[in-house]
């Protein structure tokens, strides 16, 4: 179930009195995953999605920096159009 949907349902379910469909406490499992002795830094320790997000973010950071410098250099030497 997607996280955002489970949390919206989680809000609704938390108003209920019955215990049948309540949100499960997964903190222990997360603690086990993030305390595993595998040498991974915290920003990659969650799994494949972490690497994908990191690579995407770094890519747009590098591309953006290059584009920014290029734009600033271009703006610094205005072309005189006749």
């Amino acid at each position, binding site marked *: 179930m997607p996280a955002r949907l489970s949390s919206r349902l989680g809000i609704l379910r938390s*108003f209920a009195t019955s215990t049948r469909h309540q949100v499960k406490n997964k903190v222990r499992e997360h603690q086990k995953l993030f305390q595993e002795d595998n040498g991974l830094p*915290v920003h990659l320790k969650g799994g494949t999605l972490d690497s994908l997000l990191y690579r995407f*973010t770094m890519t747009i*950071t590098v591309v*953006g920096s290059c584009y920014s410098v290029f734009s600033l250099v271009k703006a610094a030497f205005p072309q005189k159009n006749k």
Partner: protein
Amino acid sequence: MAHQTHAYHMVDPSPWPLTGATAALLLTSGLAMWFHYNSTTLMALGLLTTLMTMMQWWRDIVRESTFQGHHTMPVQKGLRYGMILFITSEVFFFIGFFWAFYHSSLAPTPELGGNWPPTGIHPLNPFEVPLLNTAVLLASGVTITWAHHSLMAANRNQSIQALTITVTLGLYFTALQAMEYYEAPFTIADGVYGSTFFVATGFHGLHVIIGSTFLIVCLLRLIKFHFTTAHHFGFEAAAWYGHFVDVVWLFLYISIYWWG
């Protein structure tokens, strides 16, 4: 034995400070490109990198604290000092805009007609939507205190209900203010009245949105059992920020809406 013998947190190497700094570069150069060359690509890249950096950096902090246990008492103390200093810096940010408002309104120039509000400006009635907005934010202060006490008393259902109401009130304020902005008979271009009104209330509105976002994240973490009865600094930080936003509004209401 290769383990630390102190209570502080030596963080893992992280790429987010670098991506965050680059995001700031892209935002600022992007603004320049937008203003001078009508191009929004760079600014859009800047907004995206800012968003990605924030999400992953704060996600990592949740991992380091709730899942890895690095937030000992001394670490938490440092975070408390940090949040207080940050909020103090924001107070000074708003003081600047109040200074601008009082500078122009206490001694209105002949160009404005020598009075405040300036000739031709029809200000909003402070006893209509602005008063409702005041009630909404004050109520949110009450509900977040309710949520905090319920959390400390291990009352899960009530803390979730109270925090949900707090978030709803914040969103309600934003919606009401957006409607007011749309319906206002004056614009930001209407002299110094328009400038001071929309810049001061606009930055406040932005901070309400930031505060609401922070509270929504806290709500999700509360539902997912991240907080304990004794250790929930993220929640307290969000509550402090919410109270700060409320106090700024009270000053805005008294100065700009009522006295102005």
